[in-house]
């Protein structure tokens, strides 16, 4: 599958600042692409548009030529955010986060991912506030790795975590994306991380966006 942003522009409020200004971006299955830029340059916004969470003001986000937001049912493009505590329901136990993943009854697959991410059984009975940020993020990643996922968007997913957890999570994700031939878009401020994980790195800066777009 091929996911692309074509000539995308976006602003959050009418008459507000243009966060994205005619941006093009492409990622294919099996390809790992890093995205880096100073804060406020619309990295998160670009991922949200690619995931179909936001509609661009101009241009379009296409998955195999069809707008991402038109896909019904399970979306093969899954996004993981920077703050895991904002992407889970605080009133539900953590096992429900895993239940939300796309497992199509394949319990073995689900178990393989859980243990690969180092998720312990005792955490599943807890509520989000009762585990650390690193433990919670592991649940969010497991949920996004359902069987029909083809392209994974990772938005600073380990920025708030300690180095040991960061190393373990990226080790697992790299192995998993290689094994399944997933596409991966990684947003990070760490150049070193991107160089170790990605095939190519896209640097977003306003001028370049304008010239290339």
């Amino acid at each position, binding site marked *: 599958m091929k996911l692309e942003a074509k000539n995308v522009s976006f602003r959050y409020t009418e008459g507000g600042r243009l966060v994205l200004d005619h941006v093009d971006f492409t990622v294919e299955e099996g390809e790992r692409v890093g995205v880096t830029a*100073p804060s406020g340059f619309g990295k998160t916004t670009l991922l949200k548009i690619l995931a179909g969470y936001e509609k661009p003001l101009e241009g379009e986000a296409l998955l195999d030529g069809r707008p991402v937001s038109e896909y019904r049912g399970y979306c093969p493009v899954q996004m993981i955010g920077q703050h895991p505590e904002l992407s889970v329901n605080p009133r539900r136990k953590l096992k429900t986060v895993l239940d939300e993943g796309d497992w199509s009854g394949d319990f073995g697959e689900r178990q393989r991912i859980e243990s690969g991410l180092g998720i312990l059984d005792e955490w599943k009975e807890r509520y989000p506030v009762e585990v650390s940020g690193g433990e919670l993020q592991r649940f969010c990643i497991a949920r996004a790795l359902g069987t029909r996922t083809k392209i994974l968007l990772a938005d600073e997913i380990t920025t708030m975590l300690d*180095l*040991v*957890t960061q*190393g373990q999570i990226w*080790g*697992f994700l790299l*192995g998993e994306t290689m094994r399944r031939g997933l596409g991966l878009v990684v947003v990070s401020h*760490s150049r070193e991380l991107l160089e*170790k994980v990605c095939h190519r790195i896209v640097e977003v800066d306003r001028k370049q966006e304008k010239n290339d777009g």
Partner: protein
Amino acid sequence: MNIGITDRNTDIVDRNADIANRDADIVDKSKGVENDVLKVEHLSVSFTQYGRGLRRRTLHAVEDLNLSVRAGEIVAVAGSSGSGKSLLAHAVMGILPYNANMDGTVYYDGEILTKERAKRLRGREIVLVPQSVSYLDPLMKIGPQVTKGKNDAATREKSRRVLAGYGLSEDVEEKYPFQLSGGMIRRVLIATAVMETPKLVIADEPTPGLHPEAAKRVMGHFREIADTGAGVLLITHDLELALSAADRITVLYGGRTVGEAAAADFLCEEKLEHPYMKALCRSMPKNWNWDGYKLCDSGEILEYMRKEYGR
């Protein structure tokens, strides 16, 4: 160098002659810490909380934490969230919340730092560069916040010089906090801290939200402050940034000190003693190496730490 230290020691003993006569033990202790601007020994902070109904429980946030900061030195305290970093800063400043119980001893400049003494010294000799930009008054212009309302020519002159040193032009003084970028606000916070020529600067997470270049610039400013002879205690979750700026690193985990090492020791894993510090060193992206299964071998360190440190 040695002679100088002995002289200063003698001086302290002289000043405290009456105390020394009363209790020889105290003199021994003060000799041991004289080199240090700040020394924290066996610090514990716990909270009393009320759970459901009338159940009361004590939460041990920091346990048996030790560290020291010498003059002219940047000491970084690195730990993930919940390791008790900010509480350390607040304990030294004497601004813990009312339901916190503190245990252990904090020495400042060789003498015990009591709550009263901290109150006298903070904002003058001991300054905090706070974590959040919301510590500035949103309704007050930058200029008066830096001069703390003083309007004499000397203070204004100094504030101008300090702000200019951080690349902040005169018109910044006439602006309100919301009109400045995150990086500028950080520099204003550091400027307010160095207005008083402090001996100890405590910086609590001074760089989140800044892109790497801006964060490095901020670290450079702390190095300048240390080079003027102040001790800097840098509290951060970002070990890699700490390594780029600090002389020594103290690693915290679950409110306890895991270990202390020179920043240079993190370049070579063998020099580190504790398995958690070794794992941190291996886990830095620059040391990653894909072997077909994993990027770095941190083994079962997190399970080990959960068992040993209880969280």
